[in-house]
């Protein structure tokens, strides 16, 4: 038993250091769980510092180790020897399936909705394109009952905070210029401006291309050389502001 345990830990981690960690255990009583690398997720969960409530713990075991070596899934080769492992995988599959179903079919919370004329539209589903005249964007918003299209002047988008959608009128263009050629910490704004000597909301600055970026925003390339990624929320908020002002 002694040899088996050491071998398992050593091969599972591939390092001698882990064996040293194991040596800190002087004696192990039979029939209980031991945590050679600390409580890990259990500790974080009890502190409440995890943003994900679903956690699965997989044990160190000869069966898992063997599966790693021969590349054969344990559920096919040795299901009878791996009850703990298979139960953990089953729990994981169940929880992930549940979460995916909830994401797909549950209603978004209030932070994922934007109101236009009393109707709530989903921020995550907006689409955005550049109008033929290049002077405005066409923003399409969808709700449970229908859809709407809002024509947003390009200068309005340019004059908004790319992450929050709040107006930027209070800041000078120099501030934006100093942040050029950099990626911001929240990865929402990327600016590669060659020159920004024009006012930010100058109508002569037109968008040249737009591309959807994952599930979080649209990258807009402007003809003054700036490329800015606007969050879905910023574009939806600007569109809602334009539509509600007209009404």
């Amino acid at each position, binding site marked *: *038993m*002694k040899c088996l*345990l*050491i071998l*398992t*830990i050593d091969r*599972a*981690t591939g390092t001698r250091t882990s064996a040293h960690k*194991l*040596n800190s*255990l*002087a*004696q*192990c*009583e*039979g*029939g*209980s*769980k*031991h*945590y*050679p*690398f*600390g*409580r*890990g*997720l259990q500790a*974080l969960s009890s502190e409440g*510092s*995890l*943003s*994900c409530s*679903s*956690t*699965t*713990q*997989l*044990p*160190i*075991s000869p069966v898992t180790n063997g599966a790693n070596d021969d590349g054969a899934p344990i559920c096919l080769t040795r299901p009878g020897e791996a009850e*703990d492992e298979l139960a953990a995988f089953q729990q*994981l599959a169940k*929880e*992930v399936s549940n*979460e*995916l179903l909830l*994401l*797909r079919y549950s209603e978004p919370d209030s932070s994922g909705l934007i109101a236009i004329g009393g109707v709530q539209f989903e921020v*995550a589903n907006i689409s955005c394109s550049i109008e033929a005249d290049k002077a405005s964007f066409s923003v399409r918003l969808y709700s449970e009952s229908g859809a709407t299209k809002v024509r947003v002047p390009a200068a309005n988008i340019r004059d908004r905070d790319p992450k929050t959608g709040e107006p930027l009128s209070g800041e000078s263009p120099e501030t934006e210029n100093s942040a050029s050629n950099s990626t911001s910490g*929240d*990865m*929402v704004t990327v600016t590669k401006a060659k020159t920004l000597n024009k006012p930010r909301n100058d109508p002569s600055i037109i968008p040249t291309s737009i591309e959807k*970026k*994952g*599930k*979080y925003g649209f990258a807009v390339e402007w003809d003054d050389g700036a490329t800015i990624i606007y969050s*879905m929320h910023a574009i939806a908020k600007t569109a809602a502001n334009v539509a509600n002002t007209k009404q």
Partner: protein
Amino acid sequence: MPGSGPNAGAAVMRGPMAGKVVTQLVKGTDWGDLDVLILDLPPGTGDVQLAVLQELQLSGAVAVTTPSKLALEDTRKGIEMFTSLGVPTLAIVENMSYFMVSEVLAYIDN
């Protein structure tokens, strides 16, 4: 492609190239009619993760970690990155979490 094939060597690539390889793989492959496509990503919050988050509409992520504090801190940052880019973390898996000692009294020495 660097690193591919049965007798492949190391894939020596800078970040932007790795991102493009992943984009080409995911978007240039005819995956057929799939129910689910699972991507096994390298650790961290680097170019590959960013490329996947920007190029694809991911439904969700499952984070995989070990119990060490350093690994958990990296995992927390990874979850934060995915969340900030609109992809929720559905579950966290902790590998090498514990081991069971059964039946006998085990003594582990040097």
